[in-house]
């Protein structure tokens, strides 16, 4: 080990000399002490925003879906743009906790828990949009196959029904994976807390976990199986979402590249979202020792890599349109960047392809302001990408007589902003109340790196 030259030696993922007990002290004490005043300020602002959003939803529901900008020919409008956007944000959590686990990437351990929380909360926001978009949100059971006196069943051949199945499964499994990871940590919270009530609650939630070696054996097996199965989900969910588009015949949508292109886009926006979250969490929660600059650096490399794949996908998409010699396809792509809403397409390309190139410089990958700027740009860019795909395609169909222009309303804006409020509120509550680092996954790392350090000293 020590014979390796400095540049080849693995850099530790835990900074400073900490013991296992220190980790619990750092991470889990957060749920026992009162949070700083800034937390209260933040949570009041975000919950206010969430409340405004929910009231807007209430207004929309009681006054009808016409209060939003959706109308012929753009019947999908903002709700579906936002749905695809939030589902995308949710993807990073799964990729980090599942695919990186299968690749035995140790650096995922410290960030997986919070990334999974991001997934769950993003999904809550995402699922709100189809629910309100169906127009009568009190009839969501019509999406499910249940026996009814009409004697009819849902059409399982419809991509929209695939979507229902995919999203519900993904949501359920994300929560399951998240909760399963929490069990050993809840058991150690049970050991820390002084309050009798909390002890009972944590004890119940962890099902009386005692860390028996026989239990760990089954637990790790289950964790691995879950990771394997969830990988197929992570790759299939956004593929299926993309088929809502690709299985139709609209120019600009009817393309075979859509499934992989959507999956990459989802991961891209997800990683950007996670970068923003951690840039704030690690400093405000004083977790720099566990979520180190090396973690941020690796996350930023993922963003950069995915940006390059994204750029390739855009080029391929344009090439396919040109090579198909189909005038409608060609027109749609020209319309993205030269049409009456050219700024949407141009913003997409700038934010997703050009801006992340900054991350080629190691300095940028390790500078918090730079990475937050890039990540915020990517998040914005990915929202506009969905806007471009969805709205700019829908409003220029095959029949020029039906062409129209989409104009969002204040209700659209209110619900979008409100969903951000909901997301941040849930995230803040999580950060305050739950073990935000998967301690049982990081503890072996601490031992591992400390052993290395001892070898070096010897």
């Amino acid at each position: 080990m020590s014979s390796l030259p400095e540049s080849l030696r693995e850099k530790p993922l835990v900074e400073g000399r900490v013991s296992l007990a220190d980790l619990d002290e750092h991470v889990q004490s957060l749920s026992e002490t009162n949070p700083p005043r800034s937390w209260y300020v933040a949570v009041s602002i975000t919950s206010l925003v969430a409340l405004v959003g929910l009231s807007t939803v209430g207004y929309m529901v009681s006054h009808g879906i016409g209060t939003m900008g959706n109308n012929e020919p753009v019947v999908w409008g903002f709700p579906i743009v936002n749905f695809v956007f939030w589902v995308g944000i949710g993807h990073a959590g799964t990729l980090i906790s599942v695919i990186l686990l299968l690749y035995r990437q140790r650096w995922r351990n410290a960030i997986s828990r919070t990334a999974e929380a991001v997934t769950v909360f993003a999904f809550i926001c995402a699922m709100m949009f189809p629910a309100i978009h169906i127009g009568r949100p009190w009839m969501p059971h019509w999406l499910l196959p249940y026996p009814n006196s009409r004697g009819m069943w849902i059409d399982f051949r419809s991509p929209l029904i695939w979507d229902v199945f995919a999203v519900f499964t993904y949501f359920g499994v994300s929560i399951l994976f998240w909760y399963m990871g929490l069990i050993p940590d809840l058991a150690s919270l049970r050991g820390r807390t002084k309050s009798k009530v909390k002890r009972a609650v944590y004890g119940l939630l962890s099902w009386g976990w005692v860390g028996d070696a026989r239990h760990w054996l089954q637990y790790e097996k289950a964790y691995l199986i879950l990771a394997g199965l969830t990988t197929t989900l992570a790759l299939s969910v956004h593929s299926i979402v993309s088929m809502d588009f690709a299985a139709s015949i609209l120019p600009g949508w009817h393309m075979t590249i859509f499934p992989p292109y959507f999956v990459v886009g989802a991961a891209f926006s997800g990683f950007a979202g996670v970068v923003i979250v951690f840039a704030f969490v690690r400093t405000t929660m004083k977790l720099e020792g566990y979520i180190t600059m090396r973690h941020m650096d690796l996350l930023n490399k993922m963003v950069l890599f995915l940006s390059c794949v994204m750029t390739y996908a855009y080029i391929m998409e344009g090439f396919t349109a040109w090579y198909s010699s189909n005038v409608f396809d060609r027109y749609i792509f020209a319309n993205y960047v030269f049409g009456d809403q050219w700024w949407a397409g141009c913003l997409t390309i700038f934010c997703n392809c050009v801006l992340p190139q900054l991350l080629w410089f190691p300095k940028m990958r390790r500078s918090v302001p730079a990475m937050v700027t890039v990540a915020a740009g990517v998040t914005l860019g990915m929202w506009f990408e969905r806007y471009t795909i969805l709205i700019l395609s829908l409003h220029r169909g095959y029949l020029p007589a039906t062409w129209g222009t989409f104009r969002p309303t204040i209700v659209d804006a209110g619900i979008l902003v409100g969903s951000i409020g909901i997301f941040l509120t849930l995230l803040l509550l999580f950060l305050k109340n739950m073990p935000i680092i998967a301690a049982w996954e990081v503890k072996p790392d601490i031992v591992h790196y400390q052993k290395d350090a001892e070898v070096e000293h010897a």
Partner: protein
Amino acid sequence: MRKPAYGVLALFPSADALLKAIPKVKARGYAQLEAYTPYPVHGLDAALGLPESKLGVLVFLMAAFGAVGVFAFEWWANAVNYPLLTGGKNAFTWPAWIPPTLEGSIFLGTFTAALAMLFIFNGLPFFGHPLLQTKTIDEITRDRFALLIVPSGAAFDEADAAAALRAAGGAAVETLPAPSHETPDAAWWTRTALAIAAACAVAGGATAFAIRVFPTVKPMVNMEVQPRLDAQEPDSFFANGRGMRLPPAGTVPRGGTPILAASLDAAGRELIDPLPVTEFVLERGRRQFDRHCAVCHDRLGTGRASLSSVYTAKPADLQSSTMRKIADGSLYWVISQGYNTMPAYAADVSPDDRWAIVRYIRALQRSQDAPERDLK
């Protein structure tokens, strides 16, 4: 006699110390060991001689069951029970059923993996575990590694086991008492049963209330309230105050079949049911009746459907003696033309289906208050 102890436990400062201790303790003749650690320690399963997990087999079976189950259901629902034909193609459109099949398989597989791991393979929850009664468990879930010698054989000597653990480097040696297996008494069962019953009653009451009230609350009735004129509504736009225009005399709807009877009674005398007596007709009638009529007249025709609490008009009781006596042709006429507040169904139900409904109403009437001879 004193209950035999659960075991003798000692703590070790690190995973390595624990791994080194195991062979030493084993060498002293203690074969049955258990270990408790804050995180999964690799190599421990081999040291303790734990068998491989069988979880994978169960998960595979359940995932396969999920896939087959969902696929079979899709096929039954979309090709058999209510065939949906698209573009004149075969109803067995298997490629389009793959995405839900995948989701179903993964859903069942993942939930089996997690739940079976916890509740079947690990036997959790076990709140009676003697470790949970100690303070030691709090150290184990933080940063200590524990080894436990399970008593085996009558000659088990606690002091010797403790010495073996100490010799292997263990500290804070303690004896764990046997888990208390108290069986709940009758009072506990009564209390639990009462609590469950109360919860069910509250949930049931709330559901019943919600089903009654929910569909009548704004905006749930919004589809009713729309800024347009409904049929037969008055409007001041035209001089005669009607919202609808009268069709020119002799107008016949496209594709519609005019009824060649002048009145309800005339229809009863003149119209004849043209359908054959087959099971298909009755089944067809049942479907059409359930779809179009049951919302108001109830599935048995009693006229007391779930909507009746909010529907101000009173749907006729199709089981009444008048309705039993009325002629088939008159029933056909009511369906086609409507009757007072009862809407006309000519536009929604084809003539043959109307006759099928009439047939089914007759069957419904015969099914209620059946005479003795029908029951034999």
